[in-house]
């Protein structure tokens, strides 16, 4: 494959957005989890909820900071690397993303400072209100991002004028049913990410016989939540499949590795798609299941990739495998959540060390599922940037040189890996320190707008000392 500015730009986009999505996915779920804890604390007054809240608030701060820093880059990359896209779709994507900045900023920035440093300065009900507003802000931010991406997947409500896309119907653009299905799918994914990170932390503490009371709260609440949300996620995943089936038949065929029209269609469970021969090697298929999944019918005819001219087909390998990895992660999480919930209900989970180990080790699964889900959606949309309207090859900055694109890719990789290493190190340190038994007093030097200032250097003896002395 030849190294072109187009390929480098795509790699850079994939790298920076994949890096970025890890943090919002985590913080949207955590913000909701913090809200639930604060509600429980408000309602019951149990100090354990406060402790768990304070502990996760610190981790939220670090992840939030990394999400903000990596998000700034995204706001500029549309223009630097995809100048034709940003010129043509700016009248639609620009306003959508400006709403993301405006609403996300207005809520998160205003109330996040109160969350971190305002516990002693505001009334309890207002503190609770602030946690709700932060959770709402992160969710709103996700909504606008999904609205923006959905317009690229299923463009509606626009007219082509000269060489730009002019919005004609904002209700269609924002309230498109596809937006809501995808938003729910993403939001659930974020909640599951939060749940599994919390569950893994709880399991880790139980394995090490530390913070048992807090660990039980973490494990119980998060596994119960996951046990309920995972089937719901399956339903929304299915609805996502429906929109792809309806609007993006080539992507659907690529995910299914269906090369030729079939009636009724089989479902390829696993295999190795081979674009050269337009067939699958070592395929394990179930007859008729493909039609059932795609159209809820035993007899429907399903479209194959060879119906589309070669230049309009997406790559097959990445959507095919990414989709299966995502579903695989979902299945493992389901088994863990259901078994774990059953054992918790029976009061036997703490004796079951293998399950605690499995839960502890499961925290990467939701992240992998989110990344592979996005790979399926984005690679499956190729060769289009705006599906059916603007090709990726025509969206890239036309005069971008290989040299410039290489420089920027290398610079982003180096900087991101650098800050990621330090960020993970500090999160790990916070997790290892754990929910220690004092409630954080407002530090004199601690200030809003500095999310990461909540991490204090650990004292030499490993005790957490109050700050500010």
């Amino acid at each position, binding site marked *: 494959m030849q190294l072109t500015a187009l390929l480098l730009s795509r790699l850079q986009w994939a790298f920076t957005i994949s890096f970025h999505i890890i943090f919002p996915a985590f913080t949207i779920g955590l913000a909701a989890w913090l809200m639930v804890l604060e509600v429980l604390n408000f309602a019951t007054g149990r100090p354990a909820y406060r402790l768990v809240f304070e502990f996760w608030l610190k981790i939220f701060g670090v992840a939030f*900071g990394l999400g*903000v*820093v990596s998000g*700034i*880059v995204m*706001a*500029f990359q*549309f*223009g*630097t*690397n995809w*100048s*034709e896209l*940003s*010129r043509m779709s*700016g*009248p*639609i*994507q*620009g*306003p959508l*993303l*400006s*709403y*993301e*900045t*405006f*609403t996300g*900023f*207005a809520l998160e*920035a*205003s109330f996040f400072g109160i969350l971190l440093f305002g516990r002693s300065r505001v009334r309890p009900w207002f503190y609770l209100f602030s946690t709700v507003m932060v959770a709402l802000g992160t969710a709103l931010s996700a909504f606008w991002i999904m609205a923006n991406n959905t317009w690229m997947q299923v463009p509606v409500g626009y007219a082509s*004028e000269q060489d730009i896309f*002019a*919005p*004609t119907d*904002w209700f269609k653009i924002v309230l498109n049913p596809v937006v809501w299905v995808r938003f729910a799918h993403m939001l659930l994914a974020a909640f599951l990410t939060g749940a599994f990170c919390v569950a893994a932390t709880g399991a880790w503490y139980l394995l090490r016989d530390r913070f048992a009371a807090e660990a039980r709260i973490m494990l119980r609440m998060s596994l119960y939540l996951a046990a309920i949300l995972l089937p719901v996620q399956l339903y929304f995943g299915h609805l996502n499949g429906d929109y792809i089936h309806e609007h993006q038949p080539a992507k659907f065929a690529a995910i299914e590795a269906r090369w030729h029209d079939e009636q009724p269609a089989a479902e390829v469970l696993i295999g190795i798609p081979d674009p050269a021969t337009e067939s699958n090697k070592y395929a394990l298929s179930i007859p008729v299941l493909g039609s059932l999944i795609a159209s809820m019918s035993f007899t429907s005819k399903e479209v194959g990739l060879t119906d589309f001219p070669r230049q309009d087909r997406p790559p097959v390998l990445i959507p095919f495998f990414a989709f299966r990895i995502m579903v695989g992660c979902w299945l493992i999480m389901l088994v863990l959540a259901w078994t774990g919930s059953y054992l918790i209900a029976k009061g036997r989970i703490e004796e079951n060390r293998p399950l605690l180990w499995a839960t502890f080790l499961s925290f990467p699964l939701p992240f992998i599922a989110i990344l592979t889900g996005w790979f399926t959606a984005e690679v499956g949309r190729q060769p289009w940037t705006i599906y059916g309207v603007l090709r990726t090859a025509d969206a890239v*900055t*036309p*005069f*971008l*040189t290989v040299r*410039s694109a290489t420089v*920027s890719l290398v610079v982003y990789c180096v*900087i991101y890996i650098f*800050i990621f290493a*330090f960020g993970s190190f*500090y999160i790990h340190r916070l997790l290892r320190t754990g929910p220690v038994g004092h409630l954080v007093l407002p*530090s*004199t*030097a601690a*200030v*809003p*707008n*500095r999310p*990461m*200032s909540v*991490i204090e*250097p650990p004292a030499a003896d490993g005790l957490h000392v109050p700050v*500010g002395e």
Partner: protein
Amino acid sequence: MAMFWISVLAISILLYVLLDGFDLGVGMIFGVVRGEPQRDALISAVAPIWDGNETWLVVSGVILWGAFPIVYSTLMSAFYLPVLMMLAGLILRGVAFEFRSKTRRMRWIWNASFAGGSLVAAFMQGLMVGALVEGLPLADGRYVGGEFGWLSPFPVLCGIGLCTGYALLGACWLVRKCEGGARDTAYRLIPYLSLGLLVFLVVVFAYALAENLAVMRRWLERPYLSVFPIIGALAAILLAASVRRRQDGPPFVMVALIFIAAFGTLAISFWPYMIPFAITIADAAAPHSSLAFMFWGEGLFVFPLMLLYTAISLTVFRGKIRATTDHY
């Protein structure tokens, strides 16, 4: 509608320049002070607000894209490498705020990335403005200058000029916020930085005359533009007076006035162009439905709230920082 959004954009950019200007300036001064106590004082003087300040950069970016997509796509793609360097600088200095207090052995890395990141980001911003003033090579509404079309003596000069200006703004902020050693250092720097800025302005003026820059001709055609340089000159005199009398409050206001004057001068000499003398505000404006969609939500409600929020957070953190507040 386009007028509304160009005003909002102008306010956002001006706020960004003033607010992030002083904390980038403090970052550059950070590179020349000696000793950790003074460095800590410098960090504390901007730590509560730098993040909020930088938000205005993103706000300016998304308004530019939503309301004036052609300008956004032309400028971002033309300034590919400068934008990259600016973002890299901003990321490195942003995380340095948080990471430098977490370590002792590696602190020098974060000290360097804080000062270096601030310097690079400020320089790139000045360079881009300079290249715009000099005129970007455009054809058919698209940039045709190549990889380094923005690189020439004048933009480099403007990059150095903006660094000097930001550093002066930063020094005046330190005078206002700090006591003791940090304040003394800042007072020592102000005369040099002011002199540097003056030399820069004279050189720019001479260069503009010598090269017969298009912007220059507009000044001669519109004598009323001189109101801004006059405001700037008056502010400079008051700056000198208040620094001489060691009044901590006024210098920052005066330098801010100089910046506002310079911003006004630039804005009016560009008018009605957004990319001088190729793309006007009217050419660049997105279709009415885009501008209206933005207006009825974020323009009418959220933007005023954001101004209010900025005002509140600056009020909350007004006054001198106490030297004892450092827990680092």
